[in-house]
């Protein structure tokens, strides 16, 4: 069910600010693609154009084409809400719904979209929590608030919540940057398992993490403050980290600038 994403000539703006410029790339299904690059180069912005979350911000707009298999996400009659059901997202800071229990957090996407049958919900909640490697830790306290879990558990809860609606693609924006090393490893293991079913795109600031979890790596850069971010290159992760084509990529991953 995972789908290929083909981006061509993509620009994103915040009002008059040109945030990312002319990005074209292909994201392969059933693989992990990592986005790396210095802060402010537009990784999050680009990620958010892939499930039409960018336009949620007032004044923000997108130009260009994003094809999900053979459908254009920015086609004139495409409903952005429907796009987000197909392309799920996990955020930098774990953000479980504070008024909801663990169960309701996972079921939220389904319940809010009209699934009401208890047996069906039970089944999906269990499957999603198992999929997020969280089931064993929470199965005895599903009715307790999601906000009562540890940071790493909360992030896995958010992943369970995202996969409960059965998306084709999973976008993750620095999902481990607020977590301790143990929880980070747990999430990385999880990503490795999830990639057999989903197309995964992960933004990370951690070069080792990109090297560990991803099959392909895209390096983004920015010419200077106020300039739009650009894609410098995308290639197999092993190639990017051993023998990148671009000088800027090499400088970045060897820490010669940041």
């Amino acid at each position, binding site marked *: 069910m995972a789908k290929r994403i083909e981006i061509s000539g993509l620009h994103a703006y915040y009002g008059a600010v040109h945030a990312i410029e002319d990005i074209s790339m292909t994201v392969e299904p059933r693989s992990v693609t990592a986005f790396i690059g210095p802060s402010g180069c537009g990784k999050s912005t680009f990620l958010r154009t892939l*499930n039409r*979350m960018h336009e*949620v911000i*007032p004044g923000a707009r997108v130009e260009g084409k994003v094809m999900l298999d053979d459908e254009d996400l920015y086609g004139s009659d495409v409903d952005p*809400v*429907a*796009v*987000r*059901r*197909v392309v*799920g*997202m996990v*955020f930098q*800071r774990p*953000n479980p*719904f*504070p*008024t*909801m*229990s663990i169960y*309701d957090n996972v079921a*939220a*996407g389904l*319940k*809010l*979209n009209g699934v009401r049958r208890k047996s069906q919900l039970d089944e999906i909640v269990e499957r999603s929590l198992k999929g997020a490697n969280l089931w064993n830790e929470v199965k005895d306290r599903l*009715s*307790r*608030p999601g906000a*009562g879990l540890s940071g790493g558990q909360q992030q896995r809860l*958010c992943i369970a*919540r*995202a996969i409960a*609606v059965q998306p084709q693609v999973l976008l993750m924006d620095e999902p481990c940057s607020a977590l301790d090393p143990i929880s980070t490893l747990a999430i990385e293991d999880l990503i490795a398992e999830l990639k057999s079913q989903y197309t995964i795109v992960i933004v990370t600031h951690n070069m080792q993490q990109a090297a560990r979890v991803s099959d392909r790596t895209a390096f983004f850069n920015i010419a200077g403050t106020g300039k739009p971010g650009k894609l410098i290159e995308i290639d197999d992760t092993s190639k990017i980290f051993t023998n990148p084509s671009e000088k800027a990529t090499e400088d970045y991953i060897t820490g010669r600038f940041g």
Partner: protein
Amino acid sequence: MSVKGAELELKSLPRVSARRRMADRTVQSLVYAAFVIAIIPLVSVLWMVVTRGMERLDLDFLTFSMNGLSSSDEGGGANHAIVGTLQQVGLTAVMAVPLGILTGVYLVEYGGNSRLARVITFFVDVMTGIPSIVAGLFILAFWLLALGFEYSGFAGALALAILMMPTVVRATEEMLKLVPNDLREASYALGVPRWRTICFVVLPTALTGIVTGVMLAVARVMGETAPLLLLVFITDAINSNPFEGPQGSLPTFIWYQAGDPNPQAIERAWAAALTLILIIMLLNLGARLLARLRKPVSR
């Protein structure tokens, strides 16, 4: 060895200076003094109302009206006033709470910086400053004089709604602004439409705060007297139809009884004041309980 070193280091750390300790003490006593001064009127008012109100607050007081009694008579009660107040404030809440919450939701979730949102904010600000007597006069001119309706609890509720709405809008606005944007985005990212996000994620998160704001607004209008004197008038008999004819109400009952030199009337005024406070307290407790029931069980 190292223990000695640590001791030396500790000794060399500077002590809190006498001046800073003095400043700390002074500010602390000032804060306590301010607290006591602020609490004195509150406690003494409560004390007065409770001790003097208790003398007459009994089942008779709650179940009898003043029908056929003169102010110098013993006995009588505020049943007609309680019924009136509950109906008038109930009608007020039915009108002002949904309108106020919807307006607050519009301003925070949809309005953004649009011209309409700015105009609404301006008028809400203006409404917040309207004196109650002016709201009463407006309804008097509009509802009673221009449209020709007669005195009724509903006319009073219209004026109270004008007073209550801006408070509810403000409370809703403030509470919705406190809801982190992360939660809205988390919901959108699940493919949940905006209106469902607002109903099932944003509003529940802000619920406790909104309920508190609404209760404050209810408490505020429950004590309003002037618009009721203009629009509901007063009566000594029970009128349980808020859409027709004069009704009693606790504030007007207190005003009327307290203006009477007879000690029996004064006693009834105190008992009515205590009743009013108790009703507000009960409503508050009830609302809090309701808000708590909606939270996930936490053990």
